[in-house]
């Protein structure tokens, strides 16, 4: 994978009332990395992703994307990102094509042809003219991925990207992620509960617990760090001290 750091998160902290949701988090993602972001429910994964995408304001710390400071150079930084945060949401009264057209309109360099391309990649070309209100969760997830690809980003952030997808859809998405990382050098930050999937496709992973990063590194190294080679699932349960509810 490349050496150039694409996403750099330093000392990221967020509290809600007296609860510390994210506590001095540091993350570095290099070009071409597929970075698995693991943690139990409520561990702070989505809050971290929301801060990285500027949806919520951190109490402390900073985020740099492609060298651009998210707070002071928001437009330059976010232009490098495609993201699905939590559930993909679209205007139900518009078609899949119209929804993407609205998004594309916010990127001067994205053409109508690109909209067709991403619909093709997401396997939605045949349903492009259908209203999103008629879509299943899996189809909305695919449309979300199409939207995340629209601006040909350098970093794609996917929060539970295989939610609602059928086994074939999950397989296709995993293959697509690996292909985009290999062929186009796109980096991925993937939050997932599916440890087996993360083990299969990610070269790096981090585990967050109660807002704190408790493990980070190359997946192979993490799995080999014990007395014997473990699966990611075994590793995860070991380091979360049996609190590894997924």
């Amino acid at each position, binding site marked *: 994978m490349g050496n150039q750091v694409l996403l750099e998160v330093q000392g990221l902290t967020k509290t809600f009332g007296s609860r510390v949701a994210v506590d001095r988090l540091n993350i570095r993602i290099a070009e071409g990395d597929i970075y698995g972001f693991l943690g139990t429910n409520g561990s702070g994964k989505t809050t971290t992703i929301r801060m990285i995408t500027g949806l919520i304001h951190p109490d402390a710390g900073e985020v740099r994307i492609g060298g651009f400071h998210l707070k002071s150079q928001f437009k330059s930084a976010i232009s490098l990102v495609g*993201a699905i945060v939590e559930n993909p*949401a*679209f205007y139900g009264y518009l078609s899949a094509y119209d929804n993407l057209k609205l998004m594309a309109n*916010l*990127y001067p360099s994205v053409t109508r042809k690109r909209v067709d391309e991403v619909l093709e990649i997401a396997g939605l070309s045949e349903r492009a003219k259908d209203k999103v209100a008629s879509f299943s969760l899996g189809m909305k997830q695919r449309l979300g991925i199409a939207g995340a690809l629209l601006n040909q980003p350098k970093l794609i952030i996917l929060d539970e990207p295989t939610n609602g997808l059928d086994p074939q859809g999950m397989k296709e998405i995993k293959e697509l992620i690996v292909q985009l990382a290999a062929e186009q050098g796109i980096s991925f930050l993937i939050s997932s509960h599916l440890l087996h999937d993360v083990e299969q496709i990610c070269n790096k992973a981090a585990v967050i617990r109660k807002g704190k990063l408790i493990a980070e590194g190359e997946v192979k190294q993490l799995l080999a760090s014990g007395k014997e080679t473990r699966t990611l699932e075994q590793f995860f349960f070991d380091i979360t001290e049996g609190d590894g509810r997924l």
Partner: protein
Amino acid sequence: MMLRLIQNELYKMVRLKKLYIFMAILAVHAWLTAYFYNAGGEWKSVIVVPNGQSLPLTLLNSMAQFMIVFIPIYVADMITSEVNSGTLKLSLLCPVRRIEWLCAKIVSLFAFLVVLLAFSIAAEYVIGTLAFGWGEQTIYADTLYSQTEGVWLTLRLAFSMLLPYMACGMIVIIVALSATNISAAIGLSIGLLTAAQYLNIVDTLKPYSIVNQMYFFHESIHQANIAAILQNVVVLAGYLIVSYFISAIMIKKRDFIL
């Protein structure tokens, strides 16, 4: 980027069924007014002298009672619904500043009001003419105007109402940004505007009541009383500016947990 955001907002507006439902309600109201006059005479209607060219001015006051409902519904759909459903992310995950998003919404509200006003004038001219004929002169506030003067007066007074309607919309935007769901946003806004009507009871407070302005702002324009116009414009500009700054601070500081 602002222009592109505005394009998106206008596209969503014309694709929204609500706009056409509101237009239908305004047209049905005009038709019912004409129908009841024809059926029962002026005691059943606000029409004093029936003719097509006077109908839009006759119904201008009653437009406010619809706007008190339409504006909260449209703004809640445009803002609270986007925040709650998460479609806000479609814009905010793009290179769009929050303040640009807010400004595009304000332009969308303005366009919505222009479309409704233009439609209501056109529909009332058509319905009035079909019901009573076009007529010889425009009659408004016991004064007669030639046809050309009447049309100009109608357009001038009707579109002057954009100012109080926008001020109302800006207040509703604050409510919509604070509300946790679309029903709360609509309910709170309509409740607030209904309560604001009670300011009309105290004469000294009347000019500062947004609801009073929504009903009667055009009358000060018609009377061409410069002092009254100036006072009303300053009050409405105050509402607009203060509401804009409050909304801007709210949108800038808010954490979007979508």
